C-alpha cells in the first residue's frame, strides 16, 4: 500500500465518522447506503470473483434479519406473545436489555447464516451457471414464502422489532444505527481487502475462468467455493440484522426475503460498478443509492418501472460496469502494460 491510498482510506474513514453530524437529516439514508455497500461487496465475492451468479444471498440477509430480532426479543420476553400482540405495546426493553439483545442478536445473525451456507453449500454449489442462478432464486423465494407461513415470527402480519430505548430524553437512534452499519461496512471492507490480497482470490478467479482446469491443477474447488459462500453469508447475515433494527418492521416477502428488491439490487449494484473489482461494488452501490432515492422521491409509484428499465439498460449496455469501462479506457492505471504500437494498430482497426 502506498502513501496515496493511505490518505484515501483515512479520508473516507474520517468522512464516515463525521458524516451523520454534517448531514443530520440523512442519517437513515447513509445507514442504508452502508448496508447496501456491504451487500454489493459480498455479492461480488460470489458473482464477481468466483463467477457464481447468485440470487440467493437474500436468503442469508433475511435469515439474519429474523434471527437478530427473534434473539433480541426472545432473550427477555416470550416470542410468541410478542408477535401476537404486535410487539412494543405489551413489553418494553430497558436500554441495557436492548443493547445486550442487539449484541447477541447480531452475533447469532452473522454466525447461523454462515453455518447454513456451509451446510447447503455442498449441494447447491455443485450446480453451475444458470442452474445455480435459478436454484438460488428458488431458494430465496421459497424462504420468503415459508417464513410467511410460520406463526411464531409473525407469519403474514409481520414482526415489529424492539423500538430503540429512550435514554434520558436523548434521541440517538439514528446515530446508533448509523455507526453500527458503518462499523459493519468497515469490517467488511477490511476483511474483503485482506482476502483479495491472498492466494484465495486467485483460486476464486481460477474457478471463475475455468473450473475444470482449476480442478485438474489440484485445487479442491468445492472447499474454496463453500468458504467463499460462507464469507458472503457471514456479512449478509450481519447486514440483515442491522437492517432489521433500522427498518423496525420485518415482513417475510417485502422486507426480509425481498428477492424483487434487495435480491436484485445487490446484483445490480455490483454489475453497475464493475464486478470482480474491490472498488466497483462500492462505487456501484453509492451511485445506485443516489439514483434510487431520486426516483423513489420524484417518481413515486413508477419506481419499479424505472428499476426494470434500469436493469435492462445496465445489463445490455454496461455489462462490464463502470470499473470495466475505466479499465478499457485507462489500462495503465490498473497496472496493465500496454504496448503503444499495439494500441495504435487496434485503434486503426476500429
Amino acid at each position: 500500500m502506498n502513501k496515496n491510498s493511505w490518505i484515501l482510506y483515512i479520508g473516507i474513514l474520517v468522512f464516515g465518522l463525521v458524516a451523520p453530524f454534517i448531514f443530520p437529516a440523512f442519517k437513515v439514508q447513509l445507514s442504508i447506503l452502508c448496508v447496501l455497500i456491504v451487500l454489493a461487496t459480498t455479492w461480488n465475492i460470489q458473482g464477481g470473483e468466483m463467477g457464481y451468479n447468485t440470487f440467493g444471498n437474500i436468503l442469508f440477509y433475511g435469515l439474519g434479519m429474523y434471527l437478530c430480532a427473534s434473539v433480541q426479543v426472545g432473550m427477555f420476553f416470550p416470542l410468541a406473545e410478542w408477535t401476537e400482540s404486535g410487539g412494543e405495546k405489551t413489553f418494553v426493553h430497558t436500554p441495557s436489555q436492548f443493547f445486550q439483545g442487539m449484541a447477541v442478536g447480531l452475533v447469532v445473525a452473522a454466525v447461523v447464516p454462515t453455518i447454513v451456507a456451509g451446510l447447503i453449500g455442498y449441494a447447491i454449489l455443485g450446480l453451475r451457471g444458470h442452474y445455480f442462478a435459478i436454484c438460488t432464486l428458488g431458494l430465496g423465494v421459497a424462504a420468503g414464502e415459508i417464513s410467511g407461513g410460520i406463526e411464531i415470527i409473525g407469519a403474514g402480519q409481520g414482526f415489529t422489532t424492539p423500538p430503540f430505548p429512550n435514554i434520558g430524553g436523548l434521541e440517538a437512534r439514528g446515530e446508533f444505527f448509523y455507526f453500527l452499519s458503518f462499523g459493519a461496512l468497515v469490517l467488511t471492507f477490511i476483511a474483503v481487502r485482506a482476502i483479495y490480497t491472498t492466494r484465495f482470490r486467485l483460486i476464486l478467479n481460477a474457478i471463475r475462468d475455468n473450473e475444470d482446469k482449476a480442478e485438474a491443477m489440484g485445487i479442491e474447488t468445492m472447499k474454496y467455493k463453500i468458504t467463499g459462500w460462507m464469507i458472503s453469508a457471514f456479512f449478509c447475515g450481519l447486514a440483515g440484522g442491522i437492517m432489521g433494527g433500522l427498518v423496525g418492521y420485518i415482513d417475510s416477502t417485502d422486507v426480509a426475503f425481498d428477492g424483487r428488491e434487495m435480491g436484485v439490487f445487490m446484483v445490480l449494484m455490483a454489475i453497475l460498478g464493475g464486478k470482480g473489482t474491490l472498488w466497483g461494488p462500492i462505487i456501484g452501490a453509492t451511485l445506485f443509492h443516489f439514483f434510487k432515492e431520486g426516483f423513489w422521491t420524484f417518481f413515486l409509484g413508477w419506481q419499479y418501472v424505472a428499476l426494470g428499465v434500469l436493469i435492462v439498460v445496465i445489463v445490455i449496455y454496461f455489462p462490464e460496469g463502470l470499473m470495466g469501462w475505466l479499465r478499457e479506457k485507462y489500462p495503465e492505471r490498473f497496472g496493465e502494460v500496454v504496448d503503444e504500437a499495439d494500441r495504435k494498430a487496434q485503434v486503426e482497426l476500429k
Partner: protein
Amino acid sequence: MDFLVFQYPMITIQACLDGLLLGILFALIAYGMALQWGVMNIINIAQGDLVILGGYIAYFMYLYGIHPAWGVIVSPIIMYFVGIAIYKLVINKVVDRDLFISILATFGISILFMQLMNFAFGADVVLANSGYGTTMLFDNNVVLPNSKIFSAFISIVFAICLVVYMKRSKLGRAIRATAQNARAAKILGVDTEKVYAATFGINAALCGVAGALISITFTIHPYMGLPYTIRSFMIVIVAGLGNLPGVAMSGMGLGIFEEFADYILGTEFRIGSVFLLLVLILVYRRFKLSRKREYLK
C-alpha cells in the same frame, strides 16, 4: 399437517383430477419455455408475466361483455406482437451472450411488466367468469368445474396444432434447423433473426393462450407471474429440451404434486413448496450427475 387426503379416497381422486387438469396448462407454458430455450438459448424469467398479461386480455374481454373463451383466440394474436416487440427491443441484444445476462435482462422485463400491469389493471385478484357450470362425478363426491375441462382440452388442441406446425410448415422447419445449429442454418439461407423473432412471438402467443385459460379457470394477479416461470423451468429441466411427451408428463406430475401439497401442508405453503421442489430436483440431479463426475450444463 393434514393427512385427511389419504384417508378419504374421494379427496385423493379430486386432488389427482384437479392436478392433472392444472398440469396440462403448466405443460403448455413449459412448452413455450422449452422452445425458446432450445432455439435461442434464453431463459425467460418474464414468461410468467406474459402469461398473466394474456390473462388480463381475456379478463378485459369479459368486462366488456364478450365471452372470455374468445380470449383463447384474441389473446395469442395480441401476445404474438407483444412478444415480437420484446424481442426487437431487448432479447435480440442478449441472444448470443452469457445465459446469466439473459436471466437478468428478462428479470428486469418481469419487474417492469409486473408494475405496469399493477398500474393498468389494479392490484386486485380477478377472474373471468365463464359460466360453464360444474360436472359431478362419483355420486357428487368429486366436483370438476367445466372450465377446467375446457381449458385442458384447449391446451391439448393448441399443443397438437403447434407440434404439427413445427413438423410440417416451412417456418417450423427453419426453427428446428436453427435449434440444431444456428450457424449452419444461416449458411444454408435461413434468416435466423426472423426465426428468433418468430420463436419468441410463438412463445408469447402460447403464454397468451395459457393466460386466457388461467383467467377463466383460476385467478390472476399482477404479481403472480414468477411462480409460473419457475414451474415451467422445472418442467423443462425434468423433461429435457425437445422432449414433448416428457414435458406433458412432468407438467401433469407437477400439477398433482401441487394439489397434494395444498391439501397436506396448507394453502399458505403452496408456492413455497413449488420453489422448494425446484431446489430439490436440481440438487438431486446434481448428485446423480456428480457420480459420473459430470454436472448440469
